[in-house]
């Protein structure tokens, strides 16, 4: 039989998970920025 789960009570501060998510989002964004940069560079070189 499942014990009654305690719901979050008066919890105020987020924790490590949020910092982890923020870091992973930053990495994703930087990867996409770099790929975009390569593409823009390719276009600029072709245009020359």
């Amino acid at each position, binding site marked *: 039989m499942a014990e009654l789960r305690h*719901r979050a009570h008066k919890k*105020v*501060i987020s*924790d490590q998970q949020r*910092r982890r998510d923020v*870091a*992973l989002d930053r990495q994703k964004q*930087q*990867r996409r920025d770099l790929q975009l940069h390569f593409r823009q560079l*390719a276009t600029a070189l072709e245009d020359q």
Partner: protein
Amino acid sequence: VAAIELPRQAWPELIPGLLANVTSSMGVANAAHLKEATLETLGYVCEAISSEVLAQDQVNSVLTAVVQGMNSSEASSEVRLAATNALYNALDFAQTNFDNTVERDYIMRVVCEATLSPDSRVRKAAFECLVSIASTYYEKLAPYMKDVFAITSKAVKEDEESVVLQALEFWSSICDIEIELLDEFSTTGDSELSNFHFIRQALPYLVPMLLETLTKQEEGQDQDEDVWNLAMAGGTCLGLVAKAVGDDIVPLVMPYVQENISKPDWRCREAATYAFGSILEGPGPDKLAPLVTSALPFMLNAMKDENSHVKDTTAWTLSRIFEFLHGPSVDTSVVNQANLPLILSVLLESIKDAPNVAEKVCGAIHAVAVGYDDSLTSTGGSNPLSPFFQNIVQALLAAADREDAAETRLRIAAYETLNDVVKCSSDDTVAVVGQLVPVIMEKLGQTLQMQVLSVDDREKQSELQALLCGVLQVLIQRLSSSEPTKYAMVQFADQMMGLFLRVFACRSATVHEEAMLAIGALADAIGVEFGKYMQEFYRYLEMGLQNFEEYQVCAVTVGVVGDICRALEDKVLPFCDGIMTQLLKDLGSNQLHRSVKPPIFSCFGDIALAIGENFEKYLSYAMPMLQSAAELSVMQAAGDDEMLDYNNQLRTGILEAYSGIFQAFKGTKPEAMMPYVAGILQFIESVYQDKERDDVVLKAAVGVMGDMADCLAGTSAQFFRNSAFYKDFLDECLSSDDHRLKETAEWAQATINRYMV
């Protein structure tokens, strides 16, 4: 044994045999014991197998036996309890029976009757069944809600705490469902289930019942994290009710608040404050702002209350006031230039209070700071918090340093708040942020000198190290966001890296993860300069990639490999054999959590982009992995939401790898990619045909088509000529409302067309 054999149809006589024990045990010696043991067994079997394993006639027989055992005519309490527990486990099997009105009525009647059993264990188990029914069969509940309200209300008035907690959980579960339906409706305009608005209908009766529980606090409840009592369950439910009905709760709760908030009995003052704090999420700011504005001075004053519970709840309420009624998304913030000095002076005084109060005060400071997030509101490099910034930082450091902070959540709260205060800081206070680097480094250095004699000591050391690495990560990011402030951080890079390497030697997953995140931020900040640390750091990087068990460490390390590739570019080459070997092992492992696999594919792209044509030696290993993952993702296209989400992540990872690899060979060795092009285009076509794909996947897919043309130049034309779908795909993306998708599609189209002549 049943869990293994029943799904294989290997033990057909089990269920009939067990049922025979229940139905023909009359006259057998110890009949009640046999019945009880059999019902318990049936419960365990139902818990262990999935609902498709039993045929409907078997489900019917099991339910009949179980419900009979629960009936009020059953003389043995033990049998009734075993039957009620068994029903809890069998509820998932009862879909068809709940569709049938007569059967459903019967099951519901028996469950409701069991809530009135003379045995409190049976009553509690019956309410547990009702909680489960609430979430599993919400749409079937309408005819029974009146009766359920009557029995929950009776329980709240007169039953034992363990039973009442379950009764309240029933209403919290209904709230959960209706909140989810409202969210679904507000985002998609539709929802899977109909919202019956049971909470709104019950509101005038439900709210007084919940308010009644709020004065049933326990002395000392705030000091113990594991406590869960009536007042907490009632207040939590009230908060959920507020989210489910919005404005309508306000007039039902405010008279209670006004009547009780100044009473001499601390229980009344705390209950009134808790009620007020609980309803702050849900009603609109227009409804709440006038009330909160007039209540704010009273609340600030209540931080001097003689009772610690009242102060704890007041600080929590303040944190919710600032969270929901202050900030850029609120038209008229309740925090303004006029009251900010008073608010901060109260908070900075109260942070010296008992640890539980101080923890909630940290929450309030956090909410004030986030409301003034520099990126959203500052003008001229300043924000209203700037004059108080130094004092806030000092108060948080002092709170974290307190002897009693280590024993409670205060230290975590203080450092986490410091992180958010730093993140929200504006340019005029960045000098203070810079001064924090040596302070935090010194604290981290001190943890390495801590005497570790027991497991408890080790845990304390790890917790503190993780928190301090977390703060350093935030400091690195904040300071490296602009060139002038970056210098303040770069001058400490050697020392910081030295500390991180020493911290790795203390083996703890959380610390590894935090130190790894900080190192990723450092590599990102200092770029190619990071190369000098690689020799020493590499072993920890490899260790992180090998950490299958604590998969979050592995995931974070994969991300840091990406950071390092972007920072070092081709200087990462000497380490790539080792990194690629480990990443390929990770992909081939059944032990590693599946969520780490999509980022590993993206990481292939990062590596390729960094080392260019040198990636060729890894192609014969990486491409088959990518291809089989692509095939798997096409085969798994259907599934539940979680599977769908994972599949989109997997496809994004695969496509990001292809993009990086094409870009790597552009202009040097495009021919290396020729054997794979047809397969990649086929995969992109499958992605295009699948209507479940999200925009991120679409963007990545259309980007790969452009990268392919860019890499292969004229040779790409033959592949695009042979593929019928690509023009339609581009057209669909070009007409998208998503600006970035449209932009990528325009670039891809121009690049493809350049070589189609």
